[in-house]
């Protein structure tokens, strides 16, 4: 029997504290200023994951012009703020989406566009797609429709801007706080040896977001299967020494 089947996936518990008022009034003003700046300069990752991406060029270019709101496409995940999931997510794509999401720096926001990210949409009976996106990633805003018009996309992005400005858009913290829940769902889909190069637990410690939901049986399973990521050359060098018993370079020198 598969080891994974014995472990239930935990329920997600909302432990996000929202907008915290600090004792220093100047610090509160500074926080507000930072949030205002964050909401007005958002870079969204240029990753067309599904068919809803066809409505993004009209939304970005001259007719609807997303750039007037300070939203621009960005090519690398390391500099992006928003991850747009445009439509159905096949299992193969979902792996890349999770890899990409974990590479993005916090604070980061996920927007699920199209009905397929909400409940599977047209492909509710498909064997190849993941149905409910929020089981695998914390989603900030859903924009329903098949497919939503550019006006709807821009309206959803404006909602997100309002949330960021008022400090409510802190769903990225849930990924660290409920990592065991999200990892459990990912393992159910991808198998128990699923792993990513990003060390989420270390990041959760760094941000001070460790809760009792972060670690659990699924993260224990991850650590059991995790292989250290080493440079390829390094491992090759060690193997050579093991086989030959001595360093070949020195022998040649003699």
């Amino acid at each position, binding site marked *: 029997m598969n080891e994974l089947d014995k472990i239930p996936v935990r329920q997600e518990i909302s432990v996000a504290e929202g907008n915290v008022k600090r004792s220093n009034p100047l610090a509160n003003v500074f926080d507000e200023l930072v949030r205002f700046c964050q909401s007005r300069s958002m870079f969204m*990752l*240029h*990753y*067309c*994951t*599904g*068919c809803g*991406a*066809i*409505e993004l*060029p*009209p939304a970005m*270019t*001259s*007719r609807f012009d997303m750039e007037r709101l300070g939203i621009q*496409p960005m*090519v690398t*995940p390391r500099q992006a703020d928003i991850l747009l999931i445009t439509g*159905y997510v*096949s299992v*193969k*794509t979902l792996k*890349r989406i999770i890899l*990409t999401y974990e590479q993005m720096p916090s604070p980061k926001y996920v927007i699920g566009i199209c009905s397929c990210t909400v409940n599977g949409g*047209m*492909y509710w*009976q*498909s*064997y*190849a*797609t993941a149905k409910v996106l929020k089981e695998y990633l914390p989603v900030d805003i859903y924009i329903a429709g*098949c*497919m939503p*018009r550019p006006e709807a996309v821009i309206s959803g992005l404006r909602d997100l801007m309002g949330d960021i400005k008022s400090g409510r858009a802190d769903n990225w913290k849930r990924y660290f706080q409920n990592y065991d829940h999200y990892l459990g769902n990912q393992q159910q889909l991808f198998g128990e040896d699923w792993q990513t190069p990003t060390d989420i637990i270390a990041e959760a410690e760094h941000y001070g977001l460790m809760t009792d939901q972060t670690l659990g049986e699924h993260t224990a399973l991850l650590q059991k299967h995790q292989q250290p990521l080493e440079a390829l050359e390094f491992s*090759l060098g060690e*193997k*050579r020494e093991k*086989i*030959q018993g001595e360093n070949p370079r020195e022998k040649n020198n003699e």
Partner: protein
Amino acid sequence: MRPENYEAIKQPPSNEFELNFGPNHPGIEGNYAFRVKLNGDEVLSARADAGYLHRGFEKLMEGRLWIQNIALVPRICVPDPVPMEVCYSLAIEELCGLEIPERAMWLRVMQLEMSRLAAHLFAFGGHAATTGMYTPMFWGVADRDLILDRFEELTGGRVYSIYNIPGGVRRDMPDGFLDRLGTLLDYLDSRLPDYDSLFFRNQVFIKRARDVGAMTQEQALKWGVTGPNLRATGLAFDVRRDDPYLVYDKIDFDIVTEPGGDALSRNLVRRAELKQSIRILRQIIKHLPSVKGAVRCPIPNPLAWNVPAGETYTRVESSKGELAYYVVSNGGDKPYRVHVRGPSSMHAVQVLEKLAVGSRLEDVAQIMFSLDACPPEVDR
């Protein structure tokens, strides 16, 4: 002396390396990936990595009613959805022996050509963006949006119209639609010289695209290339003329060919097809008011519709190439088997893999956009 179990470590030469090109890459079209092996920036070999958009369409269609699949098929090819609906409807009509009214045929041809215009504007806009020229992309997308407005007026949907059903079209067009379409065509016609001076006769584009991704006519026929990409190698083959469906035999239009077979020729063919599509639409505007009658023939209750047993293969010319449906019915209320012969699955996998070899890394995206491959249709 080396020991007996010594094996020399096989390492590739240090000047060769592999690069993952996509799926998260601005140069790739849609959700699609490539593994290219490079020497410097010269591509030694390329391997397509498809499957990111696989939804199992052909299996899904076996589990749904004939009429439910109408909502499913346009999702196969997102930039050019209308030929999907029309081709699937034609297949069912052939199985049932339905004779659709003439007005429905003209309305279908009108949508097909509007969809072709929109797809070509999108395609060369994307190509322009990969060569660093963003203005043609902005213009192309903005002009495509005006066509989508007409689609919305006619069908209610911007991208997926779901307007064609077996037996005809869902409803007649609104009053004054043809006048507004004519105004749009005048506008698009006036834009074509601007596109020429900005993009198609621009030396930046011509020098980048000439002799890039070139194939001969024999290679194109061997690799299953169809559509504008085949016509760019000099062969005048078009399903609209050589195997006419609907009312294309009553319409006067030219099959445009270019001799080069490279990325430049493929774009010039699309540029000429914009003109031809406008010409076809003008003829439709002139002729359609004289065709009276119903827009669909009576069909049985679509929720309990047993299509007679049989098999058929219907094909239409989409903006990407020859699109065909092979439909098998065993007399039930659901299809027994549906196979989609999409043009992009040839263009984006086997053709692109071969054309990319020997080109430079910055041209791989350009070749893909010049082939106008559509990843959702590759994966299905």
